[in-house]
């Protein structure tokens, strides 16, 4: 069944968006909006929080309570919102640099707390908005503006880190399979606890151009060809490509609920 994006949930007067032609972020954002539609969550209770960078701009285009925070800090702001008002459904849109580099500490600790946030990381392997510098997820040997001789660091596996840190829902999908991406985001929205959905996205202008990934359509095909189902390899990483699927979906005490349980016990 195909879900339409409700125009009421888009700030149509803020379009066109600032993303480059061919950018994968629109595919991710539309998957988020379709998942929200399917979740039947009360739209007035949604707070859509983002950080800085290309993905960070997504909060400007969606018609909810929206908060465009500082670089790396969306999870900190989101934590305050959720703990202050547990009735709110807090969704975080972030990028690989925002979440895993400058915001790495908040990422680890939000996952450790298992606080009920749904985090969608637009992972395009690069700092797009600042013009193509390497990010924590940039693959080894790739070329970026700050790795002109090829990258010598191994990339960080965001999903693996989320699992290790204690996230209770973790999934990865590429923009080559937007319907599955939508399904994982929906699962994350309905999951009580820290949900991390790694949306592997394209950056045609800054990353793809320097690494010969071709035009937008070829780029999407590259992701499709590189995708390896988790069910096949039973591991979140593989040297042969991008492992996709639902990695973790477990229950563990959630931070905000535990906190207010404590309040019930000690309240005078």
């Amino acid at each position, binding site marked *: 069944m195909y879900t339409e994006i409700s125009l009421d949930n888009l700030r149509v007067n*803020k379009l066109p968006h600032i993303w480059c032609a061919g950018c994968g972020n629109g595919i991710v954002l539309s998957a988020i909006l379709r998942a929200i539609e399917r979740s039947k969550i009360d739209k*007035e*209770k949604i*707070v859509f*929080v983002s950080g800085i960078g290309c993905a960070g701009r997504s*909060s*400007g285009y969606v*018609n*909810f*309570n*929206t*908060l*465009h*925070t*500082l670089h*790396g*800090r969306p*999870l*900190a*702001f*989101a*934590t*305050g*919102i*959720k*703990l*202050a*008002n547990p*009735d*709110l459904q807090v969704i975080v849109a972030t990028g690989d640099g925002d979440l895993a580099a400058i915001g790495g*500490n*908040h990422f*680890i*600790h939000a996952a450790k707390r298992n606080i009920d946030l749904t985090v969608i990381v637009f992972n395009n392997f690069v700092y797009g908005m600042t013009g193509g510098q390497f990010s924590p997820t940039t693959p080894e040997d790739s070329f970026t503006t700050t790795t002109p001789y090829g990258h010598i660091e191994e990339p960080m596996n965001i999903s693996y880190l989320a699992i290790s840190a204690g996230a209770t829902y973790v999934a990865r999908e590429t923009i080559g399979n937007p319907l599955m991406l939508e399904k994982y985001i929906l699962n994350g929205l309905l999951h009580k606890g820290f949900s991390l959905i790694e949306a592997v996205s394209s950056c045609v202008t800054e990353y793809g151009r320097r690494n010969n990934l071709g035009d937008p359509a070829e780029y999407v095909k590259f992701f499709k060809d590189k995708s390896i189902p988790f069910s096949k390899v039973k591991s979140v990483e593989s040297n042969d490509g991008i492992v996709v699927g639902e990695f973790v979906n477990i229950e563990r005490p959630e931070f905000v609920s535990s*906190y207010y349980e*404590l*309040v019930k016990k*000690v*309240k*005078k």
Partner: protein
Amino acid sequence: MKERLMSGNEAVAIGAIKAGCRFFAGYPITPSTDLAERMSKLLPEIGGAFIQMEDELGSIGAIIGASLAGSKAMTATSGPGFSLMQEGIGFASFSEIPIVVVDVQRVGPSTGIPTYPSQGDIMQARWGTHGSHPIIALYPSSVKESYDLIFTAFNFSEKYRVPVIFISDEVIGHMREKITVEDSHIVFERKKPEAPKEDYLPFDSRYEVPPLANFGEGYRFHITGLTHDDTGFPTSDPVKTERLMERLQRKILNHLDEIFLYETFLVEDADILIVSYGVVARSAKEAILELREKGVKVGLFRPITIWPSSEKIIADLALNRKVFVFEMNLGQYVLEVERIVKKKVEFYGKENGEIISPEEIESCILKSL
């Protein structure tokens, strides 16, 4: 009214809760830690939220988020932690989110002397973050005043939609004094929008301080740290940018009559005016009494509102008087005094972990005669 023995940090915690604070996020750092500890005990008892975050950047972010969700929110820190909070303070200033940041100063720079007092964050409180923005910074000099002034901090923050920096120092934070706890304080509540939901402008420039809706009340508005227009959405239009920057200044500076708090002590007939604040003002009062016994006519001006300054009040007090500034740093507030009085100001400062004693102040004044 109840009489109680408590420390300055405890007084801030208890006062904050009475002022309506229901959210605290912080990261432990000496000498502010016991304030967080007190909040972790008190807040759950009244249904409020306490969270120990992973660092100061997280703490300031969390209280901004909590404030947008409708809670009066506070954090507490000291020197290095205050530095880490600066980007968040800038965000709250620019996007006009009410928060209270307590900075119990320790010796700096850097890790300095964690357990000793200083007044080294006076300029950081004003100019720690980048860009031109308004701020209100308040500084008590006793435990009793710590209790009373934290109400003012929350009230100013909510009324003017501005982060309020509540500066204290290790001595005021940790000294214990018997105080009377009064329940008669006025508590100001954030002004909520009355406009129809579709017409709500979170940065409506027709107001000096636009009403602020809470997230979840159906207004669907946008908050960003980017330069924004009345709707809250990013703009780089110089006219709209200027209008915003100008309003931010105006909403504070037009209300100096209410915002600028200070104390004077024996200034009427004084030939010499001492300017000092926080713990040093207590030494200054002792010194003034000693000097007056020796026939030297000395008075005290103690700013309680450290930022912004009332130029008129300070200039009038300094008129025809020799001015001395004593502070526990190597020259910060003295720059503001010099800027305003436009004449030679005698300065005595030190930042070695020791407080400035009444004897030091006395001998400094006597030497100048």
